């Protein structure tokens, strides 16, 4: 698999960068038997070694065969199917980022309502009425539940004026 070859190289680069990073850790004023860089450096060396092994497995003429028998015994998770709907995946990822960033300015209830509604619109809008009611409960319902029952204050944002 081509993507996996690239991934193995990326991991190697990350491991190398991490290892280099351990050399940039500042010297503490008081030296002990084991400084703050020792443990990370050991991890870095191990990570680099393993990622190189991974690269080797990927670039061998016959990549290491998966041991399906072993996988069955230990109950390994099923592999994901090859199909990827990049469009939906991308839209929803952007939506999640916007949701996260609007958490404070818009406030929890409004941001959640908008995220939920947009999500319904992107994924399946055949039951709009039912789903929008669910969205209302999920946003405002949870907000009030947290505020008045669990006593956790979620950001009210645009609705701040209600709680002054």
């Amino acid at each position, binding site marked *: 698999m081509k*993507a*996996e070859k690239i*991934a193995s190289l990326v991991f190697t680069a990350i*491991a190398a960068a991490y290892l280099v990073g351990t050399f940039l*850790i*500042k*010297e*503490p004023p008081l030296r*002990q*038997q*084991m*400084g703050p*860089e020792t*443990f*990370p450096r050991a*991890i870095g060396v*191990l*990570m680099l070694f*393993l*990622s190189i092994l*991974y690269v080797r*497995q990927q670039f061998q003429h016959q990549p*290491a065969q*998966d041991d*399906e028998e072993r*996988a069955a*015994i*230990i*109950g*390994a*998770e099923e*592999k*994901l*199917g090859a*199909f*990827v*709907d990049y469009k*939906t995946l991308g839209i*929803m*990822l952007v939506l*999640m*980022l916007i*949701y*996260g*960033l609007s*958490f404070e300015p818009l406030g*929890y209830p409004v941001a*959640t309502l908008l*995220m939920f509604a947009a*999500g319904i619109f992107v*994924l*399946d809008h055949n039951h709009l009425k039912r*789903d929008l009611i*669910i969205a209302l409960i*999920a946003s405002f319902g*949870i907000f009030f539940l*947290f505020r008045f029952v669990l*006593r*956790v204050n979620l*950001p009210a944002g645009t609705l701040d004026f209600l709680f002054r």
Partner: protein
Amino acid sequence: MDIWNNVVLGFSVALTPFNLLLALIGVFLGTVIGVLPGIGPMTGIALLIPITFGLPPNSAIILMAGIYYGAMYGGSTTSILVNAPGESSSVVTCIDGFEMAKKGRAGPALAAAAIGSFIAGTFATIMLMVLGPAIAQFALNFGPPEYFALMLTGLTVVTSLAGRSLVKALLATTFGLAFSTIGIDLQSGVSRFTFGNLEMLDGLEFLVVAIGLFALSEVLANLADMRQAVSERLSIKGGLWLTKEDWKRATPAFIRGTLSGFFVGGLAGAGAAVASFVSYGLEKSASKHKDELGHGAIEGVAGPEAANNAAAGGAMIHLLCLGIPGSGTTAIMLGALLMLGLQPGPLLFQQQPDFVWGLIASMYVGNVMLLVLNLPLVGMWVKILDIPLYLLVLFIILFSFLGVYTVNNSVQDLVLMVGFGVFGYILRRLDIPAAPIILAMVLGDLMEQALRQSLIISDGSLGIFFTRPISIILLMLAVISITNPYWKQIGAFFRRAFRPA
């Protein structure tokens, strides 16, 4: 007797109306999680940690343990009725459970799963009660070198049993360890890998990584392929109860499953999924009806279901007595307990007996609740599967954000969580297991501390790990667990190397 005082103390904690209610809620939510495809116990507990924040530690762990048991049990229902395992430890249950359901014997299959879970859960709890104090007492002799060796062993055992490729699983472990080094180093006060970001000084928030890697990556995997497979769903015909013949066949399987699950999956730390497969193998060789296995034999449900619950209970022993999680799920529970300001470990039995024994008593209560709650409600559990996938996905997103935000009120955490979600999804595409990451991240800090203290004791010499008997035995176990798949090759190598010329 001492144990009785403790049990009385435990029940006085567990039977308060509030804690009873929490156990009930936990078992209920856990079962929902177990039934829902894709959300395993790990994702479920990670998502539900925030609701424990307002609770006293005692009540929080009672709730989490309930979720854990419920999720272990809930998976069996969908295995039997829909042929879709809710989590990896109920994969085997599908084989005979679904065949039984096809023959119109879904009722007895569900009953066997419930009774098996009950017997195994109760056995594991009794063992925790009997063995726990002794193990904790023994562990009090552990110094930092023993702890370091123990954590290393725990990490390698879990890693060696995760995923198809050992290299990938080990790589995942090093990622987790690396994550644990981010933030200020408490011993020296030096900041590491924070890139000048103030929020990072506290280190990566555990829940950000856990929810990102498990819940959001699951969301992304679903979004990437929303075409739902239409599954055949079987209804329950006939009675729910076991016939005399069923009892005769299932009882030995319950016992075999419970024992093998507890010792292999629990004490040895192999985990619930391995336990269920081992138990199925055991039934194949020990059952009187081995030819029927695979075609709807009750032993094939009774054994593995008992085994995975016994393993779940056994894993609690590691968590409570040693403070070392033996699986991804218990790693998440440890993370949650640390967030609550509790350090599980041998001292817990002495310092907070009400916490430990309250939990143990609530495990009995939880097991009874599972049995009483689940069989009559089985029709309702199956209906949960009618929730459309896209709504489920949106709800998981909602709870992920809610959970992570309530920890630190930090938007940066939310963005990081999405990042870890993408990372987790990429790992899943590459078939790299995520459980070792979270385990290593939780253990990383503790390991570094133990290593430091050991080196202070020995004045910088690594020899300290090889001169102490417990430590060297544990380290040998670690080496064995990691080299285990390669023994054949290693043997061949030595035969070639030492062949007389």
